[in-house]
């Protein structure tokens, strides 16, 4: 089996996972104790007629199998239902929030991966030294602090007490900034939420890269590299790091799920108008169709991102091309 077989297998697996997610999503929202509609619209102000109408809109008056067919059909058309807190289709509500989240996630990830891998590689390379102990302890601590707790601390310190950063949001309200000014304004707003995600993520990457590095440093081929009389930096770059990055790449995929958690927490604390904040809004308004939609989006993106990472892995690890 060659690279093609490897890709095919990964794509099939991803498709199966997506199908399973769709099913789970259907089941979760119907496994609730009691009448799903009652549960979904716990708001006592909703009248009986309104409830009936809702039942019909969501197809909840039909038998389960019929509901499932309707739900899948809707999904294929991109119909995720109606958000009743926004009074608009769920897909529309979510789509409008995606760019903000992407901006936050990509910024945070880029910084975290660069810094985390560099520090982790340094720590693993110098393993056993004081520097290593320091980096390790700092990372363990950073990695353990929940993003929302860190976010609140950052918010209190840098936005309230030393007011050098905004309190939240993505841009100064009613500012009418344009062009470069607007870009700066957004970046200024981006700092704290991104930082709160970056700090957790750096810890994660330091720990990952460090342990991969220590593992690689014990391998025979590193001794070979030394016996060639290569310069230290070259051994680090061409032999140690290149091999240590392989497991780091794989685990990046697995950890994307945690990145989603960081996004939800940071966006909530800093009122960043993205998909993560939408979760908080949906929870507080008991807007189940919206919650369901966001969950689907997150699950799909994690599966797709994992697929992409697997494919990258297949490209960078020569062993896969032959053995699969």
């Amino acid at each position, binding site marked *: 089996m060659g690279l093609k077989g490897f890709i095919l297998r990964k794509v099939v697996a991803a498709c199966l996972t997506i199908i399973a997610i769709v099913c789970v999503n259907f089941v979760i929202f119907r496994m609730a104790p009691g009448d799903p509609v009652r549960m979904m619209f716990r708001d006592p102000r909703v009248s009986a007629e309104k409830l009936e109408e809702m039942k019909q809109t969501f197809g909840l008056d039909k038998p389960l199998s019929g509901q499932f067919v309707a739900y899948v059909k809707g999904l294929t058309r991109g119909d995720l239902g109606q958000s009743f807190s926004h009074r608009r289709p769920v897909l529309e509500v979510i789509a409008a929030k995606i760019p903000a989240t992407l901006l936050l996630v990509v910024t945070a990830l880029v910084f975290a991966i660069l810094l985390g891998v560099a520090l982790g590689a340094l720590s693993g390379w110098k393993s056993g030294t004081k520097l290593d102990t320091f980096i390790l302890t700092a990372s363990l601590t950073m990695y353990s602090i929940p993003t929302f707790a860190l976010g609140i601390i950052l918010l209190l310190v840098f936005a309230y007490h030393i007011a050098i950063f905004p309190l939240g949001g993505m841009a100064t309200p009613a500012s009418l900034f344009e062009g470069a000014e607007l870009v700066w304004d957004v970046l200024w707003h981006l700092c704290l939420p991104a930082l709160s995600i970056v700090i957790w993520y750096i810890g994660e990457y330091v720990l990952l890269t460090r342990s991969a590095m220590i593992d690689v440093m014990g391998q025979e081929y590193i001794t*070979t590299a*030394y*016996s060639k*009389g290569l310069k230290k930096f*070259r051994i680090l770059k*061409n032999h140690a790091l290149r*091999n240590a990055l*392989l497991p780091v790449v794989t685990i990046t995929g697995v950890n994307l799920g945690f990145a989603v958690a960081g996004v939800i927490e940071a966006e909530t604390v800093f009122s960043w108008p993205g998909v993560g904040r939408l979760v908080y809004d949906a929870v507080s308004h008991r807007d189940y169709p919206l919650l369901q939609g966001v969950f689907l989006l997150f699950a799909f993106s994690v599966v797709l991102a994992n697929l992409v990472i697997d494919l990258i892995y297949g490209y960078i690890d*020569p062993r896969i091309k032959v053995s699969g």
Partner: protein
Amino acid sequence: MALIDIQDLKIQFITFRGAAKAVDGVSFQVEKNRTLGLIGESGCGKTTMAMAIMRFVKPPGKIVGGKILFNGSDIVAMNDEEIRQLRGKDIAIVRQEAQNALNPVMTIGRQITELILEHEAVTKKAALARAQNQLNLVGISDKRIDSYPHEFSGGMKQRAMVAIATACNPKLLILDEPTTGLDVIVQRQILSMLNNLKKELHLTSVFISHDLSVVAETCDRVAVMYAGKLMEEADTVDLYQRPMHPYSQALIGAYPTLKGEKQKLKSIPGAPPRLIDPPVGCRFAPRCQHVMAVCAETEPEIKQKDGHRVACHLIE
């Protein structure tokens, strides 16, 4: 002058139970264009010796005494940069377990050229041509230059290791059990390849093995080590025909002869001593058939006799 002259080398491994004397006052020399075989049971310190010549002894191990003179300069006293420039260029090593000795994500070609480019001022193109030449030399088609290690068989990997080790025409080649773990036919092929290569490149080498028959056909001289000590050293034929030290005798007696004469193989009773608290006198005394009272009290000095260097009280 001998190419490599090891004088009273002492290496210890610091453990919680005490210092293990892995190599304890070993001296020998290797002349240019000659091959010295280093034999002994596993754990006798032969690999530690090899690592010491490359200055690869890492904590908890430490070179605590002695000199390793290479072309007259002491490897033990060199700084990191001096030893780095020596490694790969003047002294090269082929170790056992080639399976994991090659970088899995780098092509064989690059693993050879990176060595050449590090030590010599040549163009990439020239280095690549040299690498192809090296592959041919060890019996691998130069078409395989862009292959990755996992596409090679075990024997080919070991050949590739030899190609890397000899790429810069090293003055000294250390072969640390280069055929262990390979099947017999591949062992043969690699050995004859090595023998040809030695003649062609005028290599001086130290060949470490526990396999007496392999040593017999590759080495000019043989040194026998036991529990961190040199027991006997002599020319190969001489040692095999007239071993003087009881340990050498036992070792040779414990090995089947190639000629197939039916002979009862004798194993050596007992086990090597613990290197943390070795016996006071001769280290082999507890297992020796000819043990005398003096053996348990004083350590035998190395004596010269009929071209042998032997450490035994039996020798006058």
